[in-house]
């Protein structure tokens, strides 16, 4: 068993949150630059260049990329030989649901520290319907844990904005549904998201699994590099076809027209029930913030 200190995990998550808030990933910046060069609509190209300039200002002047610094979604790949060495004297967990000193407590401690020290916006309310009181720490994070072989801990922090998340959708298709029908529905989800969700988008698609698995896949898909296609040829072609259909909508940056409605479409799949064909679309804005570290 390999013991990783509670503090080490918290510090790693803290620094991932801060860098996500201020530094647009290289592949996203490269996709914006390429789109700005290819864009045939001058007004749309101007907006794309403003987004590139925004990323430069954010990094150089330490102003967050976007005021919505997001809900922290943390994907954990925990080696089966990894154990957390608890912080000494820690009696209270960051969240009521967690044991003080465990992995989830360490992650939430890191998120709270990152959002506080990094001057990021605290956008989490404790109760969804009744009081909606802000927790003032941006915790609890949404944590998805996977146990894998080995003795390493891989942490990916995605800070997800509310505006684009609000436009994400799920649909349960008949298992006999044709590829074209699913493409039409996905394109319509993107069209409906429109100007409200800050295009150009990155579109995460989860196909298969069950109700919750397809939604999780659609978000996990967003962790992939934008220029990396699905390893399966059928789904790689689906990604390419979806991207051209979406860009043919003409929504453009900010929904004001243009060739660039999405920067990429990323599809992930899973086996599913003979009766089901679940499909989920996670809409991500151009401020596509995610950072990974391996301990």
């Amino acid at each position: 068993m390999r013991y990783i200190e509670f503090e080490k995990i918290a510090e790693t998550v803290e620094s991932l949150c801060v860098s996500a808030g201020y530094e647009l990933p290289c592949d996203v910046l490269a996709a914006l630059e390429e789109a700005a060069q290819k864009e045939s609509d001058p007004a749309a190209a101007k907006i794309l260049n403003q987004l590139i300039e925004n990323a430069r200002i954010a990094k150089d002047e330490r102003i967050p990329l976007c005021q919505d610094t997001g809900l922290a979604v943390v994907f954990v790949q925990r080696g089966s030989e990894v154990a957390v060495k608890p912080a000494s004297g820690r009696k209270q967990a960051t969240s009521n649901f967690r044991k003080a000193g465990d992995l989830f407590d360490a992650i939430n401690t890191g998120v709270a520290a990152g959002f506080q020290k990094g001057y990021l916006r605290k956008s989490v309310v404790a109760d969804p319907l009744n009081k909606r009181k802000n927790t003032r720490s941006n915790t609890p994070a949404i944590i998805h844990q996977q146990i894998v072989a080995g003795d390493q801990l891989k942490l990916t922090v995605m800070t997800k904005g509310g505006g684009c998340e609000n436009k994400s959708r799920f649909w349960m298709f008949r298992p006999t549904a044709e590829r074209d029908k699913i493409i039409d529905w996905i394109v319509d989800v993107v069209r409906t998201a429109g100007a409200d969700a800050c295009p150009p988008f990155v579109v995460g698609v989860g196909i298969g699994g069950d109700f919750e698995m397809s939604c999780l896949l659609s978000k996990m898909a967003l962790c992939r590099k934008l220029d990396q296609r699905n390893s399966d040829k059928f789904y790689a072609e689906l990604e390419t076809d979806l991207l051209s259909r979406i860009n043919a909508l003409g929504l453009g940056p900010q929904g004001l027209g243009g060739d660039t409605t999405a920067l990429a479409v990323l599809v992930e799949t899973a086996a599913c029930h003979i009766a089901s064909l679940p499909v989920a679309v996670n809409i991500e804005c151009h401020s596509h913030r995610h950072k990974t570290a391996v301990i």
Partner: protein
Amino acid sequence: MSEIKKLQAPLTEADVRSLRAGDEVLVSGAVYTARDMAHKRLCESIEAGDKLPFELDGAIIYFVGPTPARPGRVIGAAGPTTSSRMDPFSPKLIANGLKAMIGKGYRGDEVREALKKYSAVHLSTIGGAGALLSRHIVAAEVIAYEDLGTEAIRRLQVVDFPAIVAYDCYGSSVYK
């Protein structure tokens, strides 16, 4: 593309009537921040006949919840949030004198009717450009609902804040 128009807050009826969907504008002067919860409270105050925390007549509301300011700075990132979430509340504010809103994205039919009936506009600015837009904000102070944190109402002084007329007072929209 037409020449960029300069707007000085508060706005007059004539200012609003000079604007057409698609016009690029640069806004200067005082604008007030408000998001979901602040809108709900403002409308409750109007219904109760209470005094509002700022003069609504001719006012511009900016749909934004900024990040905290670093020491020595006026404000953090400050880009627009989705305007349509304010659709249930905006008509009441427009009927009571609000002349412009700054946000991003679409507005519903009731808002568009109110823009026509009372002569007001909806401006869209660059969603997700919170760092760039913050440079146009030279002063910020919380004036109401401090308990709401980022969602409190702030009076911002803005200089040449860039936006586009998304919905004008004649029923036209920049969105297809």
